[in-house]
C-alpha cells in the first residue's frame, strides 16, 4: 500500500509522518503540495501503481482537494482510487461535495498531536482491512 499525501502545509506533512512513526506504520508516503502535483504523481507512476491510498487536504493552492477529486473521478485510470479527506474544514458543503465524489472517509484534523496519532492508528486499521484479500 502506497500512500500519497496531498497537503500544502509543511507542519501537517510532518504531523502525518510523526504520527505514522509513532504508530509504526511503515508504508511508503509520497507527498504532493497541491492537487495538480498529486494528479501528475498518480498518472506518471511516481506513486507506484497497484494498491494506492490518497490522504487529501481540501484547501490548497493551484488545485484544491475537491477539484482534485473531480479530476480523479473523471480519469478512467483513477476512477476507483481510494481517497480519504483529511481537512480542517467542518463545512457542510465540503463534506457533501466530497462524499458525492465517492471518498472513503472524511476526517477532521485534530488540533492536538495526541489525537492525531489516534486518528492515524484508526486509519491504519482501516486500510489493513481494505488490503485483506
Amino acid at each position: 500500500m502506497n500512500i500519497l499525501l496531498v497537503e500544502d502545509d509543511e507542519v501537517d506533512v510532518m504531523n502525518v509522518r510523526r504520527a505514522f512513526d509513532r504508530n509504526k506504520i511503515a508504508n511508503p508516503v509520497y507527498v504532493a503540495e497541491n492537487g495538480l502535483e498529486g494528479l501528475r504523481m498518480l498518472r506518471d507512476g511516481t506513486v507506484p501503481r497497484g494498491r494506492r491510498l490518497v490522504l487529501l487536504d481540501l484547501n490548497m493552492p493551484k488545485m484544491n482537494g475537491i477539484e482534485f477529486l473531480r479530476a480523479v473521478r473523471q480519469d478512467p485510470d483513477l476512477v476507483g482510487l481510494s481517497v480519504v479527506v483529511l481537512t480542517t474544514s467542518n463545512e457542510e458543503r465540503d463534506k457533501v461535495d466530497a462524499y458525492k465524489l465517492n471518498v472513503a472517509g472524511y476526517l477532521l484534523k485534530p488540533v492536538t498531536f495526541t489525537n492525531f496519532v489516534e486518528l492515524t492508528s484508526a486509519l491504519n486499521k482501516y486500510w489493513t482491512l481494505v488490503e485483506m484479500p
Partner: protein
Amino acid sequence: MNSTADRGERPDVSSNASEPSGAAVPPPAENQLRPQHPEDVERARAHLHSLFMQAPAPIIVMRGPEHHVELVNAPYLRLVGCDVRVGRPLRETFPELESQGIFDILDGVYASGTPFEGKELPVLLRASGEERFFNFVYQPMRGTGGDVEGIMTFAYDVTEQVRARQQETRAAAFLQQRQKELALSAEMGVAFAGALSIRDMLHQCAEAMVRHLDAAFARIWTLEEGSNVLELQASAGQYTHLDGPHARVPVGQFKIGLIAREAKPHLTNDVQQDSRVGDREWAKREGMVSFAGYPLIVDSKVIGVMAMFSRVPLKEGTLSALNSIADSIAVGIQRKRAEARAHEESETLDILNKVGQFIAAELDTDKLVQAITDSATRLTGAQFGAFFYNVVDDRGEAYTLYTISGVPREAFSKFPMPRNTKVFAPTFAGEGVVRVANIRKDPRYGQNPPYHGMPSGHLPVVSYLAVPVVSRDGRVIGGLFFGHGKEGVFTERAERLAVGVAAQASIAMDNASLFREAQRLIRALERSNQDLDQFAYVTSHDLKAPLRGIANLSQWIEEDLGAALSADSRKHLDLMRRRVHRMDALIDGILQYSRAGRVRGMPETLEVGRLLQELVELVAPRPPAMVELQGELPVLFTERVPLQQVLMNLITNALKHARREDARVVVSAVEDGDFCRFTVTDNGPGIAPEFHERIWGIFQTLEARDKVEGTGIGLAVVKKVVESRGGKAWVESAAGAGARFHFTWPMKERAA
C-alpha cells in the same frame, strides 16, 4: 191693446189671466172692457192703468213705430234704474241700447206683430253700468182694426240666477282643471321619486303634460352647469324624436334659447303671428294655436327649459299649472343631478379603488405605466391616451414617449416628441389639469413653429385632457394625455377620474421604485452574506491551520527535548498551547455567531420536554450539579436546531458560571400568547445589574479567561438567534442571588 187680447192664441198670456199676479191682468180686463161705454171705457182704462202701475212685475207700454213710452210702472223703473220719459220714444231714454240690437227686436215685433220672448238676454244699461241678464216678452198690442199700435213689455231681471249658474259652471271647470293638475303633479311625483334617469324622468313629465294639459307635444331641455347649450332630454306627443335641429339649442338662440337666457316664460295664444315662432308655416299647417315655454330655475340658475305647443288656447288654469310644473321639474332635475353626482362619486371611487389595487400590485415599471395609461384612457372615454416622461432635452423641449393606449405605437412614432409648448408646459410643470373642449380653439394652441399646431397626419385631437403625475416628493414624473376626435368629450367626471388615476399612478410608481431599491438592497445583502460565508470558510481553514501547526510544533519540541526541558519552559509551552486552543475556540465562535439565525430549516412539531431531556443527557452535568425541568412543557411547531442551540448555550452557561459543585439549573417554559417564554435559572453568583446589557455582546466575558474558559460567544448567539425568530432575550439577576435568563420563542413558526 184691446186687439191683442182677443187673439187669445198666446197661451202664456191667457193662462196668466186667471192668476192674481199683475202680469196676468191686462188681457182678461180688456176682454171684459170691450162692450162698455166711453165713460166706462175711460174708467176701465184708468182702472187698468192703476193695475199696471200697481203690478209687482216690471211693465212698460209703448205706442207707435217709434215706441213712444205711454206707460211705465215703478217696478220697471226700479229695474232699469233710471227715469223713463213718458210720451217720448224709448230710444231717448236708452240710447246705449242702440248697439245692443234691442230696438231691432222692437221694430221687428212692431212690424210683424209677432211677440218676442227673450231668455237670459244680456243687456248693458248705462245706469247700472254692468251687464245684466233679462227674461222678457215683447207683446204687440193691436188696435180695433187689428193693426199693431204698440208693444207692451214684461221684463224680469234674471242676472243673479244666470250668474249663479255661470259660477257653478266655472267652479265645475275649475274643479276639472284642478283634477287634471293633481293627476299631472301626481304623475310627476312618481316620475321624480322613481329610480329613473333624468332623461326617463323628464320623458314621463313631458308625457304627463301632453295627457293633462292639451299639449300637442311637449319638450324638455336641460342645461349642464358650465355649458352653453340646451340639450333635448324629452319629447312627447306628436313628436318624440330627440335628434334633429332641436336636440342642441345654444342659450340665446331661437325661442327656447331666449327663454333660457332671459329666464322668463314665453307665452302666446297666437302662435301663427308670433315673431319668435321659427316656422309659422308649420304652425299654420298643423293648426297650432298656443305656445308656452318656461325656464326651469333652481337657486336663480336656469338649468333647462320646458315648452309645449297646443291646438287650443292656453287657459288661466293651464298657465298656473305650467308654472308649478316648471318649478317641480326644476327641483326634480336638481335632485336627480345631486343623486347622480353622489352615485357617480361613489362609482368613481370604486373604479379608482379597483384601478389602484390593480396598479399597486404591479411592480414592473413598464407594465405599470402601460396599465395606468390603459385604465385612464378607458375611464376618461378617450380615443387615445399616452404617458410622457418629464425628461427635457438640452434645449428644454422634448419629452419622452413612454406608453400609449388606444392606438398602435406607430401612430405616434412618426412624430417628434411633444415639446415644451404652451399647451404642454402647464402639465409638465405640474401646474394642474388642462381640459379643453376643443384644443384647436384654445389660445395656447398653434403658437409654435414649425407646425403651429399638430403636424399633418397626427392623431386628430379635438377634445384634450392632460393631467400631471406628481410624485410624493413633489417632483413631476410626467403627464397623462388624452385625446378625442370629437369636441367636448371630456367631462368634469373624466377629469376627476384622470386626476385620481394620476394620483394612484404616482404612488404606484413610487412604490415600484421603492421596490426596485429594496430588491437592490436584498441582492446586496445576499452578496454580503455570501461574502460572510466565504469569510467564515477562509477563517476556519486559513486561520486554524497555523494554530494547529503551533500546537503541534510546541508539542514536538517538548517531546524531542524530553528531560532537557526546564519546568518553566515546559509550563510556557503548555500555556502557549492553551492559548492556541482559545484562539481555536474564538474562531469557532465567530463562525457560530455569523451563522446564527441565518440558516433556516424546516419547522417541525417539537416537544420541548423531550428536547430538554436529550439536551440534559448530552450536557451530562457532573453530580451533584444538576439540571431540572420544571412544570408542564409545551409543544411547539418550530425549527429544532436553533432552539436547541439557544437552550444548550444557556444551560452550559449556567452550569459553567455557577462555579459550584452543586450547581442547580432549572428550566421552565410557559405559553404566553403567540410566544413561549423559556426561563433558565441558576444558583450561581448572579450578575450585577450594570452588566445586564454587556453580557449579550460578542466576546464579552465577565471573568478572566484563565479562570473560566469561555469565548464570550454563547449569549451573543442566543440573542441573535432569538431575535431572528422575533423573540427577545433578557436577564433578571442581582449580584449573589443567581440569575434568571428569559427568552421568548414563537409557538408556531411559519414554514420558510
